[in-house]
């Protein structure tokens, strides 16, 4: 009996969610089952993730300007802090 009630209340809740999202976003979600929409949202997030990494890696893969290594080379020749001169 409890189980039956839980199943019933679940289906009511699902129906409520359905109608809510259908009203708030009629063009996109009408006629599309919930699972499919969740899957779509997941795919979209995945796609953004791929692009985000690509954007970052684009810079990582650029050749490092000589300036960086030059600065680091010069750092060696600086007198140590609190130098012993």
């Amino acid at each position: 009996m409890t189980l039956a009630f839980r199943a019933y209340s679940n289906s009511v809740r699902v129906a409520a969610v359905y109608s809510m999202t259908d009203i708030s976003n009629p063009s996109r979600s009408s006629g599309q089952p919930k699972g499919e929409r969740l899957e779509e949202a997941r795919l979209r997030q995945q796609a953004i993730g791929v692009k985000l990494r690509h954007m970052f890696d684009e810079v990582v893969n650029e050749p490092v300007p000589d300036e960086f290594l030059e600065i680091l080379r010069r750092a060696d020749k600086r007198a140590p802090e609190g130098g012993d001169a």
Partner: protein
Amino acid sequence: MSGATNPPPKPPSADDDAFKRELVTLIPHLRAFARTLTGDPTAADDLAQDAMMKAWDARASYLMGTNMKAWTFMILRNQFYSEKRRSWRQSQLDQEAAERTLVAVDDPESPVALDELRLALATLPEEQREALILVGAGGFAYEEAADICQCAVGTVKSRVSRARKALQATLEKGGYARDGRAAGDAMRSILAAADRLAGVRT
């Protein structure tokens, strides 16, 4: 010996050499992180160079074998925010950088989806953007990102989650029209480009 005029440099230790070798491998990553923080390539390289030198000067306080990437990212981030606080011109610089970004978007040669992602990223609050970049692009765990941003792990998680939602909403809404294409195409072009990239990658 040879350099008679200069004070003798401290003899390079094995630790210094190892430190420097690792630091050099991190330069590309520091440049990329700086680029996402400043949004401007020139300012980003200045920032990355400053951070590199700060890291070098502070090498005595770095514990070899611990996460040097996270350590240098934290230095770079602190440098960025302290400079930003100092600079009264910052809002003006931001404006100029934003205008340059917009000009870049008008370039017909530039890859569409990436520019739209950059624009959408620029609309995020700073702390959400950096959290998303660190976790979503920089390859850091939530715990490492929390160390870098000096905040709680839960804070990073919620920032990343809010950033993802906001980014998706912005891209789907397509708040900017380009080449007369219908707004909302941004998400479609990102999906298409991501498919291509995923295909290339594997």
